[in-house]
């Protein structure tokens, strides 16, 4: 029987209360959101916090998706299922919809939250790549107030983030750009498994040229999830299959996959190329559709 090691349990009544508890209890305290990343880690003793602060009661306070002044604000306790079912995301930031269709399974998506997934910072985490590709900003709250960081600062390598001991990720802000499209695709072995490899792309068109682009990869060991080398290939150019193939080659060169039970390094690198091209094509189609 797998059960977590013993811990003390506290239940937060508000975001402020959760941060106060974190600050009182010290670095051995962890927040429990949907629990679908942390509890499995605790069963395996990969995490053994002395205190768990259950923030499930904050699901209302931090469960929201709001269009606000050229950005979408997503509360950190928004559950995967609500992201998947959001019409706003499907229409304007379809990369989230693409990703949520293939994150875990429908039952897990009922509980898991975006904030929990991002703070777990698994190197295969889809939503880290999604937020990186679209230039998401993470709002981190502490006793001293809020600070906002991009994914490049947020993701500090496997299982490490910019969120400090007495801090909490409270919101994700994603810019809503005109004439933009985004897409996500992953290859996995079966429903609910981590990715063999995954890619996300976003493109902004201005007068039929790519004015801005974001490409991010998951599960292929790059130093950072954002693949600037591939995005640089695109900027200033008119979209074309040939251009996307060049960007895909840049992504293949930038990633550093390792061989494991999900495939050889060569196979994963091949998949990165295919998925980068596909997501770029789909992002460009969506950007054009938005133009019309």
């Amino acid at each position: 029987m797998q059960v977590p090691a013993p811990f003390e349990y506290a239940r937060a009544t508000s975001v402020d209360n959760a941060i106060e508890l974190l600050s009182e209890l010290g670095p051995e305290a962890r927040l429990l959101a949907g629990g679908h990343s942390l509890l499995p880690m605790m069963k395996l003793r990969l995490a053994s916090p002395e205190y768990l602060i259950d923030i499930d009661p904050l699901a209302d306070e931090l469960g929201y998706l709001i269009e606000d002044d050229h950005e979408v604000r997503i509360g950190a306790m928004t559950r995967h299922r609500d992201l998947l079912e959001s019409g706003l995301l499907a229409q304007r930031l379809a990369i989230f919809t693409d990703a949520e269709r293939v994150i875990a399974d429908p039952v897990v998506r009922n509980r898991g939250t975006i904030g929990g997934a991002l703070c777990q910072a698994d190197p295969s985490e889809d939503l880290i790549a999604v937020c990186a590709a679209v230039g998401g900003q993470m709002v981190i709250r502490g006793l001293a107030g809020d600070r906002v960081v991009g994914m490049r600062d947020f993701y500090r390598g496997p299982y490490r983030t910019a969120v400090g001991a007495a801090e909490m990720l409270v919101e994700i802000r994603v810019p809503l750009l005109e004439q933009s499209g985004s897409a996500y695709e992953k290859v996995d072995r079966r429903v609910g498994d981590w990715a063999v490899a995954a890619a996300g792309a976003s493109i902004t068109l201005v007068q039929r040229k790519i004015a801005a682009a974001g490409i991010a990869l998951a599960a292929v060991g790059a130093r950072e999830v954002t693949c600037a080398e591939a995005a640089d290939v695109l900027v200033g150019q008119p979209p074309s299959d040939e251009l996307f193939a060049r960007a895909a080659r840049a992504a293949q060169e930038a990633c550093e996959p390792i061989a494991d039970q999900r495939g050889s390094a060569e196979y994963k690198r091949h998949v990165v190329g295919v998925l980068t091209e596909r997501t770029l094509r789909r992002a460009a189609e969506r950007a054009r559709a938005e133009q019309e």
Partner: protein
Amino acid sequence: MQVTVMVNDTDYTRDVEPRMLLVHFLRDELGLTGTHWGCDTSNCGTCVVLMDGEPVKSCTVLAATASRYAVRTVEGLEVDGQLDPVQRGFTEEHGLQCGFCTPGMMLTARALLDRNPDPTDAEIREAISGQICRCTGYATIVRSIRWAAEHSNPEV
């Protein structure tokens, strides 16, 4: 710690360790062994119960967390001695072989039909995609849920 969980419309209070998972609370504290305990890793879905009507994997929820919700287990599917249409569907269409995945499958089916009374086969397959039947009896499970959709007459 003292935890009170509402299961099938009854409040149960028990003194448990904070680390107690909902699946063990149901089985070991309440003796409700209809909820099965399988993989421990939130993959297999045999431990699925409903929390406020939505299917969740009870091996990955603390009993303490569940105390904020109304929990429904397979024991609570039957109402006033009448089997739920989903239970009747599994009987009519041979939706089970060994029966180990059945409680979780039926609860997910109930939640699906509550939201979508007439799902397509593709929607049924998507809904149960987080649950594993190692007898590989998926075709009959899908037929069972279809049967329930077609026979969900409330006065029956």
